[in-house]
C-alpha cells in the first residue's frame, strides 16, 4: 500500500542531505579499530603473498638462465648457498659452486614449489582474516542497532515504518560489509606499494617521473567529482530500497485485508512504481561507477603516452640521448604499476560512497535518542503494594489536542478499577501512562508514592502484567508464547497459568498441545484463543498490577466468566485496571471511572453510578436497548 501525501518523519527520508562524509567514514572505520591486529596481520599476509608472487617469475627465470639454457649470468648467492647447504654440488677452484644442471633444476623447482604452497597459505589466511573482520563488524553493528531500537520509546515506533527500520538493519549493514571487508586491507597494501614505486621512479629519472605524475591532479579532481555524484546516487538507492522494503513489509503483514478488498492489482501497480524507482536509482549509481573506472583508465593511458612521447623525445631529440630505450621500457612498467593502486584506491573510494550512504542511515538510527529514558538517579522499584495515583495528569500524542486532561484517580492496593467510556476517549492512553510507554505532559503518575519518572522502567514493568488490545503472538510454540511473561517459569507453571486463563482446554486439543507452533501473529488461532494466551502470559508474570485492556472482547461471555472467577482469586491483594465495554466484565469493580472527552466525569461503584443516572447509566442501558 502506498499512499501519497506528506508523511510524518521519524527518521529522514530525504536523499539530498548535506552530510559530513569524512565524519561518517571515520566513525565507520572506528568499528574496525578493535580488530586492528587482525587487519595488520591480513595486510602483512598480503605483502608476503605479493612478494611470493613476484618471486615466481624470478625463479623460473633463474631456472632457465642457469640450468635449462645456461648463459653467462652469474649464479645468485642464495642459490649457491642453498646448493652448498643441501650438499648436492661441489666447489672447484675459482669457478664457484658447480652443480649438475638437472639437480640444479630440481633444487630451483623445489624452491618454486615452496613459494607456491606458501603463497596459497598466505592468500587463504588473508581471505579468512578479511571475512572474519568483516563479519565481526557486521555482527557488532547489527547488535548495536538492535540494542538501540530496543531502547527507543513507543512514540518513536508510532512514527516509524517497520519495513524501513528493517531495511536499515538488513540492507544497509550488508552494503557496508560488502565494501569494507577486504577494502580496508587492500587500501593499506595499495598504499604501501605506491610509496615503493614512487621512490624508485624518482630515483630512476626525476624528470620522466614528474612527467608521468602529470595526470595525477586531474585524477584527484575526477575522483572527487565522481564520488560526490556517486554519493548522492547511492543515498537514493538506500532510501528507495527502504521504501520497497516498507511497502513489502506492510502488505505482507496485512495481506488478508488486501485480498479481502481485492486490492492486489492496485497494490502491484503501486509496488511497481517504488520498485522502478529503486531500479532506476541503482542503474544510475552503477552507471556512475561504470563511467568512473574507464575514465581512470583513459587517464592512466594518457600518462603512459606521455612517458612514451616525452621519453621518446628525450631519447631522440638530444644527442647523446638523455634517456635510454631501456629506461623508457622500465618506466612504462613502473607507470603501469603506479596507476594500478591509484586506480584501485580511487575505485574503492567511489564504492565507499555506497557504504557511506548506508552508514548515514544506520548512524541516524544509532543517534536517535529515546524520548523516555531512566532518570540518571532512577531507583529500582522495590516490590510494590500496588497503590496507583494519577495526579492531575494531562497528556497528548505529538502536538495534538490533549487526549487526557487533568485526570486524577487513586487505586488502592488490591482494588479492581474499571475504566469506562465511549471509544477513543483515552482509556488505553491512561493505562499506557501507567506502564510509562509515554511520559505525561503535566501532572504525575505515582505507584506506591514513587513518581514513575524517578524509577527504572524495567523494575516497574516487571511488576505489571498487561494484556493489550491487539494480541501479539510471536512465532514459536504455545509454551514459548505464554512463557514470555516470565522466562524462568517451569512448564508446570506455564500450564497452570494457561489453566487459570482457561486456555488449557483448547491448547490440549491442538495437534501438538503446548508444543504446537504458532504462526506469526498466531493466525492459526481464533482471536479469542489468542486473547486467552495473552491473558495466560500476563497471569504467569505474577504481576502486582494487572492491566486488562479489552482483554476478553473476543472471548465468549461464558468463558469470560470462568476467567473472571479465576482472576478474582488471583487478584486478591493485587491492583487491577480493566478496560471493557461489556458491563458484565466491570460490574464487580471496586471503583469505576467514567471517561468522557479526556476527563473523568463520574466515579464510584457500579451501584452508585447506576443510582446517579448519569453517563454510566446511559452506557449501561445501551447494551440492552432494543428496537423500540
Amino acid at each position, binding site marked *: *500500500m*502506498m*499512499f501519497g501525501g506528506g508523511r510524518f518523519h521519524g527518521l529522514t527520508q530525504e536523499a539530498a542531505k548535506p552530510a559530513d562524509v569524512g565524519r561518517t567514514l571515520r566513525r565507520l572505520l572506528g568499528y574496525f579499530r578493535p580488530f586492528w591486529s587482525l587487519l595488520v596481520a591480513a595486510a602483512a599476509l598480503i605483502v608476503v603473498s605479493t612478494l611470493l608472487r613476484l618471486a615466481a617469475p624470478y625463479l623460473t627465470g633463474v*631456472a*632457465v638462465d642457469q640450468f*635449462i*639454457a645456461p648463459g653467462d649470468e652469474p649464479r645468485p648467492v642464495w642459490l649457491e648457498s642453498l646448493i652448498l647447504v643441501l650438499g648436492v654440488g661441489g666447489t672447484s677452484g675459482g669457478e664457484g659452486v658447480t652443480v649438475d644442471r638437472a639437480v640444479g633444476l630440481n633444487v630451483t*623447482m623445489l624452491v618454486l614449489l615452496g613459494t607456491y604452497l606458501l603463497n*596459497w597459505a598466505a592468500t587463504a589466511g588473508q*581471505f*579468512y582474516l578479511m571475512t*572474519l573482520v568483516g563479519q565481526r563488524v557486521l*555482527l557488532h553493528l547489527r547488535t548495536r542497532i538492535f540494542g538501540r531500537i530496543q531502547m527507543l520509546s513507543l512514540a518513536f515506533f508510532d512514527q*516509524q515504518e517497520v519495513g524501513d527500520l*528493517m531495511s536499515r538493519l538488513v540492507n544497509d549493514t550488508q552494503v557496508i560489509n560488502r565494501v569494507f571487508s577486504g577494502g580496508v586491507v587492500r587500501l593499506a597494501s595499495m598504499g604501501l606499494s605506491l610509496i615503493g614505486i614512487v621512490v624508485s621512479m624518482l630515483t630512476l629519472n626525476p624528470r620522466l617521473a614528474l612527467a608521468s605524475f602529470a595526470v595525477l591532479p586531474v585524477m584527484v579532481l575526477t575522483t572527487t567529482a565522481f564520488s560526490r555524484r556517486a554519493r548522492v546516487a547511492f543515498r537514493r538507492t538506500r532510501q528507495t530500497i527502504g521504501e520497497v522494503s516498507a511497502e*513489502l513489509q*506492510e502488505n*505482507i503483514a496485512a495481506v*488478508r*485485508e*488486501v485480498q479481502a*478488498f*481485492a486490492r492486489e492489482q492496485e497494490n502491484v501497480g503501486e*509496488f*511497481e512504481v517504488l*520498485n522502478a524507482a529503486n*531500479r532506476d536509482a541503482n542503474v544510475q549509481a552503477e552507471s556512475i*561507477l561504470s563511467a568512473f573506472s574507464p575514465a581512470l583508465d*583513459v587517464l592512466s593511458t594518457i600518462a603512459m603516452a606521455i612517458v*612514451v*612521447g616525452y621519453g621518446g623525445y628525450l*631519447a*631522440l631529440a638530444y644527442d647523446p640521448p638523455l634517456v635510454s*630505450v631501456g629506461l623508457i621500457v622500465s618506466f612504462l612498467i613502473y607507470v603501469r604499476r603506479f596507476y594500478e593502486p591509484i586506480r584501485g584506491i580511487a575505485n574503492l573510494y567511489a564504492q565507499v560512497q555506497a557504504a557511506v550512504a548506508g552508514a548515514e542511515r544506520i548512524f541516524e538510527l544509532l543517534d536517535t535518542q529515546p524520548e523516555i529514558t531512566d532518570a540518571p538517579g532512577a531507583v529500582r522499584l522495590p516490590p510494590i503494594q500496588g497503590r496507583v495515583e494519577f495526579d492531575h495528569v494531562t497528556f497528548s500524542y505529538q502536538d495534538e489536542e490533549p487526549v487526557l486532561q487533568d485526570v486524577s484517580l487513586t487505586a488502592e492496593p488490591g482494588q479492581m478499577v474499571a475504566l469506562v467510556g465511549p*471509544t477513543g476517549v483515552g*482509556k*488505553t492512553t491512561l493505562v499506557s501512562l501507567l*506502564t510509562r510507554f509515554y511520559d505525561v505532559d503535566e501532572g504525575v503518575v505515582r505507584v506506591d508514592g514513587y513518581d514513575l519518572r524517578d524509577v527504572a522502567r524495567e523494575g516497574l*514493568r516487571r511488576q505489571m502484567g498487561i494484556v493489550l488490545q*491487539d494480541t*501479539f503472538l510471536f512465532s514459536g510454540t504455545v509454551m514459548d508464547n505464554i512463557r*514470555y511473561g516470565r522466562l524462568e517459569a517451569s512448564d508446570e507453571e506455564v500450564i497452570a497459568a494457561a489453566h487459570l486463563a482457561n486456555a488449557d482446554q483448547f491448547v490440549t486439543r491442538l*495437534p501438538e498441545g503446548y508444543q504446537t507452533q504458532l504462526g506469526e*501473529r498466531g493466525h492459526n488461532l481464533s*482471536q479469542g*484463543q489468542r486473547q486467552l494466551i495473552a491473558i495466560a502470559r500476563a497471569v504467569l508474570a505474577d504481576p502486582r498490577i494487572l492491566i486488562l485492556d*479489552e482483554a476478553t472482547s*473476543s*472471548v*465468549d*461471555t*461464558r468463558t469470560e*466468566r470462568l476467567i473472571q472467577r479465576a482472576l478474582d482469586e488471583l487478584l486478591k491483594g493485587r491492583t487491577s485496571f480493566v478496560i471493557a*465495554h461489556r458491563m*458484565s466484565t466491570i*460490574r464487580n469493580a471496586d471503583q469505576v471511572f467514567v471517561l468522557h472527552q479526556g476527563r473523568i466525569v463520574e466515579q464510584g461503584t457500579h451501584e452508585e453510578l447506576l443510582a446517579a443516572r448519569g453517563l454510566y447509566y446511559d452506557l*449501561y442501558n*445501551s447494551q*440492552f436497548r*432494543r428496537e423500540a
Partner: protein
Amino acid sequence: MKYLWRSLGYLKRYWLLAAGAFLGLGISTGTRLIIPRLTQVVIDNGIAVGRLDIVLWASAGTVGLAVAGSVFTFLQGLLAARTAQGIAYDLRNELYAKIQSLSFSYHDRAQTGQLLTRATSDVDVVRMFVGMGFIQLLSAVLMMAGSIALLFVTDWQLALIILVLVPLTFGIFGFFAGKARPLFMQIQQRLADLNTVLQENLAGVRVVKAFAREAHEAQRYTQANQSLFDLNLVVGRLFAVAIPLVFLIANLALLAVYWIGGHQAIAGDLSVGRLVAFANYMLMAFFPMLMLGMIMAMVSQAGASAERVFEILDAHSEVIERPDAVEISAIKGHVVFERVSFRYFARGELVLKDVSFAGEPGQTVALLGATGSGKSSVVALIPRFYDVTGGRVTVDGHDVRDLTLDSLRQQIGVVLQETTLFAGTIRENIAFGRPNASLEEIIAAARAAEAHDFIMGFPDGYDTLVGERGVTLSGGQKQRVAIARALLLDPRILILDDATSSVDYETEYRIQRALERLMEGRTSFVIAQRIATVLDADQILVLEGGEIVARGTHEELLAESPIYAEIYCSQLQGGDSGSSTGTELECTQAQGEIER
C-alpha cells in the same frame, strides 16, 4: 543449477541489453590487449630506430584506443547494470504479485520476515550473479575454449596436457561449489530467521515493552546474529581455501611444465624456445580458470538464492481461480452452505463439520458461539479465503469455486477481526477497496460507520495520517474506519467478524441502525460476542465445536436452546439487583422455562 538456469531465463527479456554488455566487454578486452602491442611498436619501431613520427602517432593511437576501450567499458557496465537491475525488478514484481495472491492458508504459515528476506536479499544475490557473475562466467568459458583451440593449432601435445587439467579445475570448482551451496542456503535461511526476529520484535514492540523483555529480545537477536556469523565464517573458511587452490593448481601445472620440460631441454629433447612458448600458452589457458575460481562463490550463492526465490514463485496457492471461472456481475446475496466441512491444514482437526444453512437476500445472519467454535471459519469461506474440505458454498446458486475471485470479493465487504490500517490518510484508508471513490461517498460511509465525528475531531480531518507513521487511533476508532472501508464498497454481502468488539454499546447501536438502512435487500453476516449485537438478527446460528447446534431468532432460541439462554444470561447476570431491567427479568424467566 536448475534454478540458476531458470533465473537466467529472465535474461531473454533483456537479451539485447545483455548482448550489448557482452559485446562491450569483448571490445574493451580487445583494446586492452592491443594497447601493449602498440607500446611495443613505439619502442621497437619508433624509439629504437629513431623515428619520432612513429613514436608520436603510435602514442596518439594508444590514447585513442584507450578512449575507445573506455567507452565500451562504460557501455558494458551500464548495459549490465540495466540488465541485472531489470531482472531484479521483474523478480521483485513477480514475487510481490505472487505473495499478494497466495491464499490465506499459505500466509497462516509463512513469516513476514522470511518472505521479506527472499524478496530483498535473495533477489539481490541473484541480481549480482546475472549482472556480473554470469557475464564473467560466459567470457571465462569462451576464453578458455578459444585458448584451447589456439593451443591445438600451435601444439596439440601440449593442448592434450591442458585438456587433462581443465576437468580437474572444473572438478574442484564443482566440488567446492557443491559443498558451499547448502551452506549458502543455510546462510540465507539464518538471515531470514534473523530478520524474522527483528520483524516480530518491531511488530510486537508493545508486548516487548510491556513485559520489559528488551534484554531478552536483544539476546534472541544476538543469538540469531551469532549463528549467522558462525555460518558465514564456515563459508569464509571454505572459500579462503578453495579460491587460492585454483591458483595453486594453475601454478603447479606451470611448475610441471618447467620441471619436466626443463629436464627434457637439458637432455636436448626440447628446445628452450618451445618450452617458454609452452609456458606462455599455459598461462593464457589458465587465466580463464582463475576467473572461474573467483566467481565460484558467487555461482553457488546465487544458486541457493535463486532456489529460494523460485520456491515462492512456484508456491502453490490453495485457492486457485478456475480457468473457466465466471464473472458474477451483481450478486443478489443468496448464500448457501451445503454440508460444509473444513480444516485449515491437511492433518488438522475439522474445524467445521457438516454445516448447512442459507442466508437470504436482506437477511442478517448472526453467528454465536464459544471462542474457537468456528465462527470466523464459516465467514472466511464466503469470500473464498479458504476452500472447503467437503460440501460447498454457493452464492446465488454458483459454487464460489466457479467464480472469479475479484468479482466475488469486490462485492463482499469484510471487516476482519484484527484491523490493520495502512500508512496513509484516513481518507485513503477508507477508500482502500475503491481508490477512486469521491470524498462525498467516503464521508457517507464514514457517517454510517459512526466514524465521521471523531475523524472531524482531528485537525486534519480526513487527511489525518494514520497507520505506521500517523496518529494513534483507539481500537474502537480503527474498527469504525474498517467498517467504513467495507461499506464504501457498497457490498451485496457484508461480513462483520467481531467488528465492533472495541466499540462502545451506544456507538454500536447507532452503527447497527445505519447498517439496517444501508443493507436493505442485502445479506449480512455478523459475528459477535455480545448478545446485544445479534438480538435483531433474522437468523442466529449457535456454533459449538464446529457444528451448528441451534438456530432461529432470538425469541425462538431463548425459548428452545439452553446454550443460547446461558450465553444470553451470562452477559446480564452479575449478582446485583440494583438495576432490574426488563431484559434481565426476561432472561431469568427464559432460563427457568427451559430448565422445566
